[in-house]
């Protein structure tokens, strides 16, 4: 199992609602940790997921939260970005 996977959200509000829920579930802010994730989008216009909002899903460590994502979790896709 990968230690980190991702879920894509079609809308900004969808991402924000989930992020808020995850923050509350994990007790963030906590110490030096101010956020769970940063709002990033698929920037490759040739990707079928172009413009979608990316949420990391951690399967390990202090901020494990895979139980907050019941479906739609995928592996990282290099096509999301052009370097």
């Amino acid at each position, binding site marked *: 199992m990968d*230690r*980190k996977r991702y879920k894509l959200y079609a809308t900004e509000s969808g991402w924000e609602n989930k992020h808020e829920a995850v923050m509350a579930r*994990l007790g*963030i802010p*906590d*110490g*030096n*940790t*101010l*956020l*769970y*994730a*940063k709002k*990033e989008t698929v*920037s490759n216009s040739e990707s079928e997921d172009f413009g979608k909002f*990316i949420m*990391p899903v*951690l399967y*390990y*460590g*202090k*901020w494990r939260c895979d139980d907050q994502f019941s479906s739609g979790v995928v592996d*990282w896709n290099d096509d*999301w*970005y*052009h*370097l």
Partner: protein
Amino acid sequence: MAYETIEIIANTAARPGTPTDGMIRYQQDIQSCIVYDDGASAWKVFTPDAAPYDLDGTTIMDTTPLFHFDADKFNGTDDTGNPDDDATVDGTWTSRTNGITAAQGTGGYQPTYNTGGANGEPYVTFVNDNLDVGVNSIIPGHLQEFTFFGFMNRTGSNIMFGGSLAVDTDSVWNTCWMSGTTYNYTYYPANANLANSHPDIDDVPAELTIPTGGDPANGEQGRMFILTRDESNVTKMFIDGNNRNTDFDGDDFDGTFFAMEFIGAVSGSGSQFRGYHKLYEMAFWNSELSSAEKNKLITYVNSRYGTGRDGLGTGTFERVAF
């Protein structure tokens, strides 16, 4: 004047809060004695002409790096502050010199601390993670020569970013990276819309590549990176002691300051710029180290990390004439 017992003081922040006139302390990170001047309400630092740096109790470098992030001295002093194995790095990694710190305030991008790596040494695991150091942190006035040293290895076939050195706020040196099958480094010059400029490694040795569709184990070997830039802007990249790039004539730095901006990323602004690798240590000198000094690093790395870092994982670093 009363001189109190000389003690080991870790860094500037650890200086006594209520010093008395004439109080003398030894400050470990700058390897100098400091004396408190009550009249000036300041600590006086007497810096020697040469600033030797003790890497491991045996290997003494002629000059002290501007930063040295060592996973086995996470608090910058000793191993008492090292996180537990597999712990999320939600605190601060402090350089052994100059009190420079690195941290990540976003939980989803915090790396993991691990023990039991090469020769039992600890390391920090990055999985699309990075640590922020900050462009205002270090190296004022430095714009030319440098030496970057790191011991790390990437994981799987993902991209590895050693770290980024910022020139002002709009251009970066990506210290070393691995993408696809080869290692390289990149200079994104200022005033060029971040168009990248980097050499191609034309003669990539087989042990430094991952065959297409092949076992990525070769790429996962721990590697020693030394990246140097001389006073004429010529940059060379040494991997496992061997020079892999020569005479890459880069541009002048056109800026007012130079700083380590990120560890494990070339930019903190997107997941595409964060790396997948294991980092044991990294250091930066404000000069081009001599051949003798670079060979000291080889001796040190061979001693600390043991065997198993060549392409087949069976040998020690080759000592070469730089």
